[in-house]
């Protein structure tokens, strides 16, 4: 069971990381090419602006999902500064339940929005319909919900096994970045 979960988690992690890198590289290439063409050859790619902005939407969701994995979402600072490490997992269970509920509802809202756009038949550029880009919104919120479910199961698992939780500083994004080198190699 545990192996199964960690396999799914690993697969998800690698896929998200890969897609994130591809999106950023494509976005960077298009944006730089546009500047080059516009300033040197006085032409340009008509869809470059729109495209890069929509790529940011993709990056946003992959980044947010990875932040969920690392448990580094921005929050009121009080909790990780004042709360003792041993109490944190108990509260975390509550928090994760709320997160799963809210994100599922947001995912549903995004789904309705996407279907609406699909029916309206709006086109972003050339023949590409807008909903092809908006599709990342329900997928993104879905991914984040899934991540919260995984976090929830992990925390319960750690609570039962009485495993020591990470110190609360680790929910400060910058601190997590410092420690991420080992995290990614594992």
């Amino acid at each position, binding site marked *: 069971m545990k192996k199964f979960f960690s396999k799914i988690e690993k697969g998800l992690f690698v896929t998200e990381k890969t897609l994130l890198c591809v999106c950023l590289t494509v976005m960077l290439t298009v944006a730089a090419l546009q500047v080059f063409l516009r300033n040197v050859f006085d032409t340009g790619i008509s869809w470059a602006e729109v495209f890069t902005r929509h790529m940011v939407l993709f990056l946003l969701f*992959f980044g947010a999902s990875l932040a969920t994995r690392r448990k580094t979402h921005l929050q009121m600072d009080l909790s990780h500064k004042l709360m003792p490490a041993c109490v944190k997992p108990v509260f975390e269970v509550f928090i994760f339940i*709320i997160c799963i509920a809210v994100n599922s509802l947001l995912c549903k809202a995004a789904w309705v929005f996407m279907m609406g756009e699909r029916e309206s038949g709006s086109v972003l550029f050339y023949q590409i319909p807008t909903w092809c880009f908006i599709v990342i919104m329900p997928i993104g919120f879905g991914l984040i919900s899934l991540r919260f479910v995984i976090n929830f199961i992990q925390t319960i698992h750690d609570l039962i096994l009485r495993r020591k939780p990470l110190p609360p500083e680790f929910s*400060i994004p910058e601190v997590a970045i410092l420690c991420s080198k080992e995290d990614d190699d594992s």
Partner: protein
Amino acid sequence: MKTLLITFFALIGTPLFVMFGGITLYLFMHEGVNTAVIMIEFYRLASAPTLSAIPLFTFAGFILAESGAPKRMVDLAQSIIGSVPGAMPVVVILICAFFTAFTGASGVTIIALGGLLYPALLKAKYHDRFAIGLVTSCGSIGLLLPPSLPLILYGLIGQVNIDKLFIAGLLPSFLIFTLLALYSYFVSRKQKTERVCFEFSYVWKCIKEAKWEIPLPIIVLYGIYGGIITPSEAAAVTAVYVVLVEVFIKKEIRPFKDVPRIMVESITMVGGILIILGVAMGLTSYLVDHEVPTAILEWVRPHITSQAMFLLMLNVFLLIVGCLMDIFSAIIVVVPIITPIALQYGVDPVHLGIIFLTNLEVGYLHPPLGLNLFIASFRFKRSLFELYWATFPFLIIVLISLVVITYWPWLSTGLVELFAGH
């Protein structure tokens, strides 16, 4: 009851985007509005012209911070001004400002550069307490300089022209630099620190070492101020340039091992910020539709009668916010509500932005909960109490600057008007 519940969940550490999402969902469902409206507002993000500058500049900043660029720039700055008393702290201030402006997050500066700058200060015979205090405080020094992420975010949310904000931050930053440099000068006289001799051959060597990094600020600043390219285009050019230099010319960042990791790190941070922004768009539009800022204004108007008093209250309020939240969340939450109120009191939106960011900069250092204190305590393995003492003089200096910046609007708007006159 509802407010209590919300406060409870916020305090136990529910992610802010979930808080906003939950509240917005509740409000819309309560009114019987289709929740897809939240997503329509969220999608408005994709029409913000400067949006793409945020991930690109951050990525470039992270690459720079991981490469050997900081060391080369410290060497260069030290070789040029190292013979002046109190020069090493100035070098620290300048380098920190440069990297905070690029990475947008002050914690990254402390974590990435602390290991380089702190020993360098000790080597120049500065006392340990001063060194720790300086490095911790400098983590938030570059917030007002282009192309800092909080500035871009403020412009995006407060609907203020980013070019103007980039100009407005120059003089206030200069003020903070000057005060810090003066203080460092006195400290260096007292602590009998060491200086390096000025040698032209060494300067030349350092220039040659750093020749690829020197054009960087010029590209960014000339591009933006010269009006040749937009901020998001400048971000793309910077990112490509940095990758070319650090990966292919200097070969300090491995293309297949390090670049993807840095991409993931920087975008994880950016994603965490932007998702709050996206979800909060729905909440903000709800609050504005229901004229909440007007209601707050009606409520405060009898108590706050003058602009000076408003500014004072604003400072106090933002200092509290700065202790409770990180800078990005604070901008996303507070700016849409404060801006209309500030306009009523005749505060220029550009000036408001600079006050806002300087306040949050102070919040980073403010005991007991300033974020920089926590990060430095983790980074340098010191107790928080030691850091309160070490950063105290710097906190006073930044507070003095804050007062000057708040009550002397010209400092923020003077250059903007001058440039507009051209």
